[in-house]
């Protein structure tokens, strides 16, 4: 029995909230931060919300059993005080932190955890996160509606929750930190019905106090929050319906603290050239890779030489220039900040001559014509044009099909698109673990009608290796597991169903009065900022 008592570590966090992120300055309490977005906030229901805009708001209103150190990808306990993993890796026992209260004043108990997991798996909830819980025993019956509850989740007493898994899964603790696992109080969900997403009740650092549809949401500090001293802000206001260009003008005018949609591409160079403005921009990596998929079930991309030739034909440095250097060239599916990334691997070097030779070897000495699908918002059509020119140089005539996001996703799922540039729909990790970049987008499970594996690439040996890697749950063997994942992605690169192009960098503009470590403004799991830990300096 491996026992992890985390209460000591947590006592440190509880007593010294300022230690959480390494901060250059002493945090100040109070004030209201203003954040803007173009689109409405769809919902704050943690079982439903799945866009990057509401993702971090939900994190501030709710909590899960697990959490991350602010500004990092390091797991830490959240509502769980400690947890146990059985030797076979199949049973997880969580001890709940006592005295945690929901915003409605009621104390959190183990039954709330059981209820929340059952709710997200229940097909009636229509949760986009349902599939993440497939490793729990009894998932299939519950997900198909044949059972009301997931048999593998139980609450032996008010302070203990036990999860029984049907297979060992090293990503389970990450799943417990996902928004979809956040704990909701049954009575509030039942009272609000379908409107729970507009009237959220959680245990988080902020509570929603106002939601004027189409205009603004106001979140106020939860004075009873279980991490004492957090959050630092008294409140934050999210103003919606603001065009990114206008939001930037307002930020320059001191009316907005964070333009949530970032710096519009057309304004990027102008902002970065201006020293005063550039000093307010925080840059960081994100768990994102932009790639070209090639449908391996269709000629000519059924030939590995052709796919490798495409990899060698793409001038990634030039594409990075097309987007004003807002990315770094990629050579493998995983982004550099992801555990399991293969350091020292150089990938396919830009070599049009070598690419032509490979095409000739595959029997396409005269090239061929194909289609490149792309989402129709800037800068993606421009990137597609750069790709088109690179392909033309080795004899491939790719016509660009520029469509709305939903139409590209549809074509990718249906397998009718020979090539897709992933920009605007690219994979951003749900949680910081290499497994999350495989299953749905490179594994056999995703290579089905409607799946997200747009290359329709299915290598059963790799699926087996992936299952083996994820069965290594012992934290002492984490390096062994990551080495396995690195090997998997290297094999993917050999088969070349994708041409990885770049890893996008994040650029967050903040007002001069905002304080807190830079890492909080490019937090890998909370986009655009970690609302709980930023503060106003004045």
């Amino acid at each position, binding site marked *: 029995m491996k026992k992890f008592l985390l209460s000591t570590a947590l006592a440190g966090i509880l007593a010294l909230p300022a230690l959480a992120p390494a901060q250059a300055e002493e945090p100040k309490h109070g004030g209201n931060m203003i954040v803007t977005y173009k689109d409405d906030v769809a919902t704050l229901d943690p079982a439903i919300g799945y866009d990057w805009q509401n993702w971090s708001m939900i994190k501030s209103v709710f909590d899960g059993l697990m959490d991350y150190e602010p500004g990092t990808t390091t797991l830490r306990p959240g509502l769980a005080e400690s947890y146990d993993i059985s030797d076979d890796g199949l049973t997880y026992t969580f001890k709940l932190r006592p005295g945690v209260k929901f915003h409605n004043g009621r104390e959190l108990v183990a039954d709330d955890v059981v209820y929340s997991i059952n709710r997200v798996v229940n097909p009636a909830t229509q949760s986009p996160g349902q599939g993440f819980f497939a490793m729990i025993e009894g998932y299939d019956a519950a997900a*198909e509606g044949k059972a009301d509850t997931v048999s593998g989740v139980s609450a032996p007493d008010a302070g203990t929750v036990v999860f029984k898994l049907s297979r060992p899964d090293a990503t389970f603790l990450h799943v417990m930190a996902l928004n979809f696992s956040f704990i909701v109080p049954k009575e509030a969900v039942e009272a609000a019905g379908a409107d729970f997403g507009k009237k959220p009740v959680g245990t988080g650092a902020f509570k929603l106090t106002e939601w004027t549809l*189409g205009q603004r949401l106001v979140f106020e500090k939860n004075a009873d929050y279980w991490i004492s001293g957090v959050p630092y802000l008294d409140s934050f206001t999210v103003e919606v*319906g603001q065009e990114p260009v*206008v939001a930037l003008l307002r930020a320059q005018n001191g009316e907005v603290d964070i333009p949530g949609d970032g710096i519009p591409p057309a304004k990027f160079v102008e902002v970065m050239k201006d020293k005063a403005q550039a000093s307010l921009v925080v840059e960081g990596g994100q768990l994102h890779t932009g790639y070209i998929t090639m449908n391996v079930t269709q000629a000519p991309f059924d030939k590995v030489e052709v796919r490798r030739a495409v990899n060698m034909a793409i001038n990634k440095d030039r594409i990075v220039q097309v987007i004003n250097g807002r990315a770094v060239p990629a050579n493998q599916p995983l982004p550099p900040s992801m555990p399991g990334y293969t350091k020292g691997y150089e990938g396919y070097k830009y070599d049009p001559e070598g690419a032509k030779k490979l095409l000739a070897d595959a029997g396409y000495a005269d090239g061929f014509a194909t289609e490149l699908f792309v989402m129709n918002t800037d800068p993606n059509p421009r990137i597609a044009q750069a790709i088109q020119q690179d392909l033309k140089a080795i004899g491939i005539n790719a016509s660009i099909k520029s469509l709305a996001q939903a*139409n590209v996703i549809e074509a990718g799922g249906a397998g009718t698109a020979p090539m897709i540039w992933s920009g605007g729909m690219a994979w951003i990790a749900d949680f910081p673990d290499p497994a999350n970049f495989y299953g749905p987008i490179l594994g056999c499970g995703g290579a089905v009608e409607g799946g997200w594996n747009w290359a329709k690439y299915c290598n059963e040996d790799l699926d087996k290796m992936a299952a083996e890697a994820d069965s290594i749950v012992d934290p002492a063997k984490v390096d062994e597991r990551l080495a396995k994942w690195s090997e998997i992605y290297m094999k993917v690169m050999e088969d070349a169903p994708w041409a990885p192009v770049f890893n996008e960098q994040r650029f967050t503009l903040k007002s001069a009065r905002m304080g807190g470590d830079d890492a909080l403004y490019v937090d890998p799991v909370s986009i655009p900022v970690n609302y709980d830990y930023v503060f106003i300096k004045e």
Partner: protein
Amino acid sequence: MAAYILRRLVQSALILLGVSFITFVLLYVLPADPVRQIAGRSATAATVESIRQQLGLDQPFFVQYANYLLNLVQGDFGRSYLQKTEVAELIASRLPATLLLLVAAIGCELLIGLPLGIVAALNRGKAVDNSLMLTSFLTVSAPQFVVALLLLFVFAVKLGWFPIGGYGTFAHLVLPALTLGILGSGWYSRIMRSSMIDVLRADFIRTARAKGLGRSKVILGHALPNAILPIIAMIGIDIGLFMSGIVVVESVFGWPGIGQLAWQAIQRVDIPIIMGVTLVSAFGIVIGNLIADLISPLIDPRIKLR
């Protein structure tokens, strides 16, 4: 009169039915699956099918359409696929902003367009006329996005006279209304000009002048009331133009109206919202035209409603 209104209302209902059918067909044949948008990227095939069933999207087209109409006549526009909120509530929360902008924008169009049209008519063929008509041509063909941003940049950012977008006070209303007002004024000035030129040639104007009435009295007291008729009809048509124009203007100025709502819903394939906004807009256009037709005989007794 009553029979006329009744007949027009029945016609309107048929038009709305037609609009609902065409929109429903277009959304049905769209090569984008709303269920995938809801289910997200980690959903299994079983989850996708289960959601499709719950939303009734596995039913044949005519069953889906009939169900939609059945709910609609009971006042139920359905729930947004992604926001899960009642569509009626979403539209109701945004309609006042759009109506306010509609009234203010048409007010601006008239205030700018009518005087310019009159001045052009009185100076027919002269340099003033030519330059005014060229201006009107430029305004109706100028891109809304550019004009909106230009006004915002000059009057809000540089001069600081108005807030940089938003909603709530009169000051917030000025720039979006002015944008639509400037862009739409060209239609009114052109119609006003040609109508005014026709009227100024009429016998009763010559008579009025012959009686020795002052120039301003002839124009404002006699010519204008007779020349205004096409403008009333134009307002009816203008509501339709307005509905297509607000999408951009509401987005730039952060004006929380139904144009913004429609644009977001289209991007997310949120069919219940798209249907709802389309029907409400079509209803507005139909009613606007009906009112314009009812007002005409009040201004010109020669017009009879049949």
